[in-house]
């Protein structure tokens, strides 16, 4: 219903300000890496993604609700 976007600047622009952190983490912590570094590989067994998302989620939103629940009275 809604189409929201922050990228109104042209593609050449130096990146929009206020890129949502969660979208950024989806990308900078991407799996499917073509190049492995010397060191990160050592902690790759504890996925960086999980580690970092834990940090993100622990502060982004304290409310945890199951999806698809109805809120109306029965």
């Amino acid at each position, binding site marked *: 219903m809604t189409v*929201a976007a922050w990228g109104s600047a042209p593609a050449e622009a130096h*990146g929009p300000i206020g890129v949502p952190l969660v979208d950024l983490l989806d990308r*900078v912590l*991407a799996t499917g890496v073509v190049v492995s*570094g010397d060191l990160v590989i050592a902690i790759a067994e504890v996925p960086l993604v999980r580690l*970092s998302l834990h940090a993100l989620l622990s*502060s982004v939103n304290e*409310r945890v609700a199951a999806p698809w629940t109805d809120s109306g009275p029965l």
Partner: protein
Amino acid sequence: MTMIQDTALTYVFAVCRPSGERTAAALGGLAGVGPPAPVRTLAMGPLTAVVQDVPAADYAEEALRQRLSDRAELERCARAHHEVITAAMAAAPTVPLPLATLYRGDERTREALRAREDSLLTALDRITGRVEWGVKVYALAGQPATPASAPGAAAATGRAYLEQIRSRRRGREERQGAALRAAERVDTVVRGLAVAARRLRLHGAEVTGPRRTHVLNAAYLMDRGRERQLRAALASLGRDEEAVEIELSGPWAPYSFADGGTPP
């Protein structure tokens, strides 16, 4: 241990096509992830890496774990990484590397990247003149199907009560199914404009909040000139698909297509 801590590591942000001085100029003044060392280019034949020297102590396993577990520090690192990649991308075709890709010095960097030279060159071919767009679709939490029915009266008997529960569950399943189908339609339309597509992980309720459920998180590699068409297509989908919310983000450096991507 001591030896490692005293050594500088080479942090690699991205790999670009050589652009003469353009990339170096675009990087001038950026702090990168670990000032005071400058963000610089490292030439390696047909490729140029964008790198920065960082203290090994900051990136030892435990140190890195601690830093990336701290939200403010994680955000600082991610944004610094992104800033450098965005600047490089403005100067030359750029394949971004993941956060904290580190080598033990420039020679190791050259060696490792040279081993992947063919696939990096292929990726550069694929992403030249293209950018990544992110499209997310959320299902909106539904209203009870019959809000007018008075709960007390309707649930007068056990049978009526069970029927209400069943009907509620059916409603939920129908909404979920409808949202998933809407997400597939959105994906199909956007793929039609893209040269490659990739699904990213869905966000849980901790991120989306309780009022909506994430049903599609996708990245699309698209020619730069497609932006207007993409926005028009999403606006049209947004009008047609009433059960979902669509979010567009971008243009991104082609993070999700560092391997060049597979055709949609």
